[in-house]
Structure formats: structure tokens, C-alpha cells
């Protein structure tokens, strides 16, 4: 709207939201002595408002003295945190490998730490060196080795040590597997699955070539005791890959693959093959608020607009209907509900068009996170090879504590 010079009056555009707020505002509702933040500041502090074009108020107000002007302390003391923090487990799948839970009362910065540690710093076992003795298949050596590296192994990494460059590979830091697959001439194409990987508890069987013909033949690992003896957990449970039906390669008639693979301990930061989880993601709890009563004809449009079935129709009697928010958790922020135009037709600047009314406010709660973890480790849940997501989470927190201790020790 243009301002006319000299008249000194500027036309302000008042949004519908402000109009409804003003209509419903009652000065008698305010407390005698205002405590805490005014409601609009509280909204900014605790919610991410997902407007039609972009979300606003996304950064969390972290500084403890941010609201000193209104006399409110923004710091989160440990006692308050301990009282308000809650974890709600939503679902654990039948095999224990999928875990969905809510964390309430924790800030994004602290929460992200768990996520980082969980994915990048938790150790696992994965194939690092692949010794290929014979490969006449159409899958090239390097491609085969890369595929072997991504195979998940069901072995508890806590039982093993890291293998650095100067160490000798021995039974404490390496797991050796053998694969020998052949497709005879005349047979059809054959699939090589992970169940054909055989564990060698006595170490490598490939002989290292050395110039001296009289010395004892050395292999690629110097194993003093068989792993079956040194690890009581593996005496009756041989170590296997986590899933027996992962396809490694396909062989045509007359092709053969003979290789030995050594698995070592590593963390996800170095290479994604050492990631302990197949999927780990988190999101903030969605909050969907209806800003005005959506009645009668508009309810159908609103309910149909949402592909995730967030809204539902409520019968109010007398044939009148009303829309309610039934399952806000399903909201994926597709913003279909705010894209639709509702309301009466009006004449704006001489052109007939539908008036844009903001019906729905899409928000995210800043302190409430929904976390989904899907681990891919052993199929056998009873053995030590399986590390279900809840155990993994505890491990991740322990690693974080170790980091803090190290920093404190360095500072003292």
C-alpha cells in the first residue's frame, strides 16, 4: 500500500492471525504479576514456525542471559533438566532391531551429539583386507573387495582391539573368513551369498611368500591361539555375517572365486562400512494447530488435502461438521493444507478472487525429538554378536562421557 507524502499516515496490513488474537484477547485473563515470558516470546523460544515459504525461529535461544531484559533466566540448570527430561519408547520391533523413541526436554545441540556419536564413533567389525587368490568371475577384483567390505559381521566389537599400522594381525584384532565358490561348466548361473563365507578361527591359511625357502611358511596373520579357545563366546557359536542371504557376486559356468577376507574394528567416521546402524534419523515433534474453526464444506477439503491423514472430521450434531487434528505425529510438513485457498470470495483491487485465510499453523516443538534407530547386526539374538539399538545407545553415551573426561583431564 503506498503512502501519500505529507499525510503522515501509513496503512498497516493486519493479518488474520492478529485479528483473531485481538478478538479473543481478554485483559482479565492475564495474571496479576506477569511471570515467565509473554506468550509470543515463549512461542518463539519453544516452537519452530513452519510458514508457507520457509521455517522461522529455527535457531534455539541458547544464551542464558537472553531474556534478562524481561527478568527471565534462560539457563537450563541440571536439576531442572533432571526433572523435566523424559524418554518415551514408542515401538521396538519383534527382532529387537528397530527402535523408535521420543526424547522430551533436551535441546537440539545436546541431542545431536548422541546422534553423532551413535553413527560415527561406535566401533564395529568389517572387512578391511581382502586377499584374492583366484577370481575368474565377471565381477572385478576391486568391485568384489568393495562389496565384501560392506558386508555386516555379527561380532561384538568390544571383544576385539583396534589394529593399527604397526601391529601384527593376530587373533585379538582380526577375524578371518574364507570364501571359495565355483560354478561348474554346464551349470546355470550361480549366486554367491554371504552364507558361503566360512570363519577360520585358526587364522589365515594363505601362505606369505618369502625369499627364504628354508624358513617355516608364514601366513598373513600370526595367530597363537585359535579364536575358538580364546573367546569363550565363540566356542559353540561360530562368527557369521549378520545376514546369510546377502548377494556378493554371481558366477557363470566355469567361473570361480577364491578369497580370504580379514575383518578389523573401526568407526563410522573412517568409512561407512563400519556404521553400526542401517538407519538412524530423528525429527522434531510436529504440532498442528487449527487457527480458526474449519466447518462444513471446508472440512472435507482440509481432510482430503492432507496425504498423511493428520486431520479428521468430527460430527457436532445438527448435521454440522468440524475438522480436528487427529494424528499430528504423522505430519511430514508437505504443506498441502496451507497451500489450499479457503474462505469467501472477495473483490481485491477489482478482481474477484478467493481470500487467503490462514487456517492451519504448522509448528515443530523444539525440545521434543522422535528418534528412529534400525541396527543391522546379528540375526541370532541370544548370542553376543547382536547389539540391539538400546545397547548401542548406551554405548554411545559412554563414549561421549569418555570424551568429556578426557577434556577435563587435559585441562587440569
Amino acid at each position, binding site marked *: 500500500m503506498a503512502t501519500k507524502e505529507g499525510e503522515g499516515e501509513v496503512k498497516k496490513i493486519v493479518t488474520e492471525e492478529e485479528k483473531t488474537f485481538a478478538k479473543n484477547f481478554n485483559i482479565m485473563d492475564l495474571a496479576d504479576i506477569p511471570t515467565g515470558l509473554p506468550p509470543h516470546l515463549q512461542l518463539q523460544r519453544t516452537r519452530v514456525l513452519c510458514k508457507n515459504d520457509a521455517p522461522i525461529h529455527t535457531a534455539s535461544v*541458547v*544464551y*542464558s*542471559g537472553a531474556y534478562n531484559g524481561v527478568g527471565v*533466566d534462560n*539457563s*537450563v*540448570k*541440571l536439576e531442572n*533438566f*533432571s526433572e523435566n*527430561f*523424559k*524418554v*518415551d*519408547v514408542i515401538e*521396538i520391533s519383534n527382532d529387537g532391531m528397530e*527402535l523408535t*523413541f521420543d*526424547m522430551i526436554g*533436551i*535441546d537440539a*545441540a*545436546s541431542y*545431536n*551429539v*548422541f546422534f*553423532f*556419536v551413535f553413527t*560415527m*564413533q561406535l566401533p564395529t567389525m568389517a572387512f578391511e583386507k581382502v586377499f584374492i587368490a583366484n577370481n575368474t568371475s565377471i565381477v572385478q577384483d576391486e568391485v568384489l573387495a568393495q562389496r565384501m567390505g560392506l558386508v555386516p559381521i555379527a561380532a561384538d566389537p568390544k571383544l576385539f582391539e583396534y589394529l593399527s599400522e604397526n601391529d601384527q594381525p593376530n587373533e585379538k584384532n582380526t577375524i578371518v573368513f574364507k570364501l571359495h565358490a565355483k560354478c561348474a561348466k554346464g551349470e546355470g548361473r550361480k549366486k554367491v551369498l554371504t552364507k558361503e563365507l566360512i570363519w577360520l578361527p585358526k587364522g589365515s591359511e594363505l601362505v606369505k611368500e618369502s625369499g627364504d625357502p628354508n624358513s617355516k611358511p608364514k601366513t598373513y596373520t600370526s595367530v597363537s591361539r585359535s579364536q575358538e579357545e580364546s573367546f569363550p563366546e565363540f566356542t559353540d557359536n561360530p562368527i557369521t555375517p549378520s545376514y546369510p542371504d546377502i548377494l556378493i557376486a554371481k558366477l557363470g559356468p566355469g567361473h570361480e572365486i577364491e578369497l580370504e577376507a580379514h575383518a578389523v574394528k573401526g568407526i563410522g567416521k573412517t568409512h561407512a562400512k563400519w556404521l553400526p546402524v542401517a538407519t538412524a534419523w530423528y525429527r522434531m515433534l510436529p504440532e498442528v494447530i487449527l487457527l480458526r474453526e474449519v466447518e462444513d464444506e471446508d472440512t472435507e477439503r482440509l481432510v482430503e488435502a492432507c496425504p498423511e491423514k493428520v486431520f479428521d472430521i468430527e460430527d457436532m450434531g445438527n448435521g454440522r461438521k468440524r475438522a480436528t487434528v487427529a494424528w499430528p505425529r504423522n505430519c511430514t510438513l508437505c504443506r498441502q493444507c496451507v497451500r489450499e485457498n479457503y474462505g469467501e470470495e472477495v473483490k481485491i483491487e477489482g478482481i474477484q478472487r478467493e481470500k487467503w485465510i490462514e487456517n492451519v499453523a504448522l509448528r515443530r516443538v523444539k525440545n521434543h525429538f522422535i528418534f528412529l534407530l534400525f541396527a543391522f547386526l546379528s540375526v541370532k539374538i541370544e548370542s553376543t554378536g547382536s547389539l540391539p539399538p*538400546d545397547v548401542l*545407545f*548406551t554405548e554411545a*553415551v*559412554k563414549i*561421549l*562421557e569418555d*570424551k*568429556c*573426561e578426557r*577434556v*577435563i583431564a*587435559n*585441562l*587440569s
Partner: protein
Amino acid sequence: MEHGSFTNDSFASFTLAEEDHTLANAVRFMLNQDPRVTFAGYSIPHPSLECVNVRVQTTGDPAREVLKDACQELMLMNRHVRSVFDKAVSEFKVEQARLAAEEEKNRKAEEEELKKQRDLLASMDIESD
């Protein structure tokens, strides 16, 4: 490694080696929550170098102590998170086991009922024969 001034120890920059956003963001958050801190921030000079610079400025307390306290609080918070999480998961598992047992019981009761009905029908058939 602390880069501070000899005269005034209320502000300093700390270099943490072998760290990245994982710890630095969490420590920065805890530092900001401390009312003694006027400025707290971190930066990573180069992503290939594993090194983080943390800057702390306080209202008088030595920066090193404040950083140590922030790390301590972070540790305590983690312990609390771990215990709450473990409790929640074990409670959920217990609840699930209880629900599964109840379902088993209901299912067995239903099967018994069906069997009784079938026996009854069978006996009626024999009679009609």
C-alpha cells in the same frame, strides 16, 4: 591447550585436538547455559585437521574453571539421559511382555471355547446318528 592472557584469566581460547562438532557443539551449549559466561563459541579452522577452537569469556571467573564445569555438567547430563533411557526401554519391554502374555491367555481361552463347542456339536451328531 589454552591461549589466554597472563594478566586476566577470565577469557581464553582453548584448542582441543582430535575433536570435532560432536563434542564442541555440546560443550558450547553447556557453556552458554552457565550464567557466568558472557561469550562462548567454537570454530573448526579446517575440516581436514582434527582440531577445534573454543572461545570462552566470563564475568570474572577463570575461563578454564568454567570450561571444566561445563564438561562436568555435560557428563552428568549424559549419565542422566542414559539412566532414563535404560529405564524407559526396560519398562517398555516389561509392558510388551505383559501384553503378549495376556494375548496368549485370551487366545488360549478362545481356543478352549471353540474346542468345547466342537465337542458339543460332535456329540450331538453322534446322538442324531
